[in-house]
């Protein structure tokens, strides 16, 4: 088995960096662990679920997608430099990796998104199996597992009580990476740690069935009372992918920006007329739940939720999508 001591993760990052990868890893800063670009000297925090998800490196929160030069009497398109740097996400959670299936689906549906696909091509995902889970985790309820390999190019599995990590290459990209990092990997036996125990909390198919039939249920009014309408859940979600196009203009140039957007915002569906088809927060929360467990699966045959629990961990108002699903399942019975 290819192994590396957990404490030597920075050496792995260093080797990959030397091999031309841009290394992204969970790094702690000011009490908050985030996926960010690793640099020599930075410690890697493999234990925690980072506040952001690895989607940030495929679908950044803001990017210029077009430029126009202003001229007398009009404008003309200007080139947008698009760089897809060879990137590795190190210690991605299995739930992050699992989200790639859902993201790939939406960014290649009727239109193949150039920027996304270029980054996706250049990205290698090395996930880290979970040996712990907290009360917000529910991957097992949405078809995932603490040691799931969906979407990953390679997986690190904790062994010897967390002292060692065992690397399994799963794809060509994964094998290329293992080769690039060969110098830091050892070959030898290791006793794999048991994956986190995470009982299934709800039946997502049952939830989907209830949702499809209960758009107008009074349940929504009451279930969304606490929601204050920010975008924290959507922005932390590894699957959420809504965006807004905004033009910013100065006297010489117009830049068209693609910025993250969230169905939690009232502005999201506000018409120019002033009419809003989702007039209150309950309609927006309903949309969020339905999209993840009913609409998206109908369209793409996959849930738009991987059970990472980030949304509930970050919610200031204690909104928890898993709890909502449990209640829905109960309603359906």
């Amino acid at each position, binding site marked *: 088995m290819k192994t590396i001591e957990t404490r030597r993760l920075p050496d792995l990052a260093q080797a990959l960096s030397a091999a031309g990868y841009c290394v992204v890893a969970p790094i702690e800063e000011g009490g*908050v662990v985030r996926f960010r670009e690793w640099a020599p000297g930075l410690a890697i925090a493999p234990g925690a679920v980072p506040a952001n998800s690895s989607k940030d490196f495929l679908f950044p929160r803001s990017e210029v997608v077009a430029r126009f030069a202003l001229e007398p009497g009009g404008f003309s398109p200007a080139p947008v430099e698009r760089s897809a740097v060879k990137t590795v996400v190190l210690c991605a959670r299995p739930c992050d990796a699992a989200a790639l299936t859902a993201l790939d689906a939406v960014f290649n549906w009727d239109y193949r998104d150039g920027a996304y696909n270029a980054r996706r091509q250049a990205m290698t995902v090395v996930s880290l199996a979970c040996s712990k889970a907290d009360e917000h985790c529910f991957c097992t309820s949405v078809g995932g597992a603490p040691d799931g390999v969906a979407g990953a190019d390679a997986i690190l599995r904790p062994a010897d009580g967390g002292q060692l990590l065992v690397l399994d290459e799963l794809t060509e990209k994964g094998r290329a990476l293992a080769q690039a990092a060969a110098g830091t990997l050892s070959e030898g036996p290791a006793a794999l740690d048991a994956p986190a125990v995470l009982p299934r909390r709800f039946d997502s198919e049952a939830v989907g069935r209830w949702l499809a039939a209960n758009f107008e249920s009074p349940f929504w009014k009451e279930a969304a009372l606490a929601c204050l309408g920010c*975008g924290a859940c959507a922005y932390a979600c590894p699957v959420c992918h809504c965006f807004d196009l905004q033009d910013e203009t100065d006297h010489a140039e117009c830049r068209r920006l693609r910025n993250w957007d969230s169905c939690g915002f009232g502005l999201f569906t506000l018409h120019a007329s002033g009419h809003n088809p989702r007039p209150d927060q309950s309609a927006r929360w309903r949309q969020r739940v339905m999209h993840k467990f009913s609409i998206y699966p109908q369209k793409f045959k996959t849930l738009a939720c991987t059970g990472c629990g980030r949304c509930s961990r970050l919610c200031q108002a*204690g909104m928890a999508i898993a709890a909502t699903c449990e209640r829905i399942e109960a309603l359906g019975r």
Partner: protein
Amino acid sequence: MKALREAAEKLLREKRVSLVIGYEDRKGRPAFFAAKPEDCGRLAYDASCRQNLAAYLGKPEIRARLPVAVVAPPAVLRSIVVLTAESQLPPGQVLALAVDGDSFLGTFDAAGVAELLRAKYSTLAPEPALLERVQGLLQKSPAERAAFWEAEFSKCTRCYACRAACPGCYCSRCIVEKNAPQWISTAALGHGNYTWSVMRAFHQSGRCTLCGACEAACPQGLPLMLLNAVLDREALEEFGSRPGYDPEAKPLIGSWSADDDHSYMR
């Protein structure tokens, strides 16, 4: 705890309110909405409650269910007075279940809230630790301060959790949502993030009660209270402004005195 639950239950039983907005007796003390007397047993309050529940008073869903009662520690009481002064609360439609530490202080209407604050909390001051953080930052050079904020604001994803958490952010159309012209870039990039956070804080001067809900809500842990605190201190020192005590107060921004300082002007 018992007294709070009983008072809330009484309000619902006597149909004086249709909803009690409080904190739930579970981990993290999230917001909880008691609509029936029997729900009130789930209410709780302690120092770990970070949300400012007055933020719910601007939500259309809640306004449709007035009259309501709100579980309110001192900072939230002040928010209620601020909202009253700025004509955001329909008269007589909001009751406060005042709490502080472990004790329940009683049920108050808007006038009672102002009286309670004057009588019991007239000397509320910002936490010394917060002021020390402000002072510490001010002692750095302008370039160091800029670098500090550059690092902080670069984390901002523009999720607007800070705005959602704040009872003072009650505009129906936030300035950042105005796109003709778009004063504040909505891209989650340096300058837009900077302008957003600076203007958010500035727009709260005269409203902010330093409740800390915005900073607590920020998923990225931005030190937003530094911005609030420097404005709070300046408003107090220069204009004697203490938001949230006088329901008849003139707006800090929107009034003036001939004696206002202008020593920095030439």
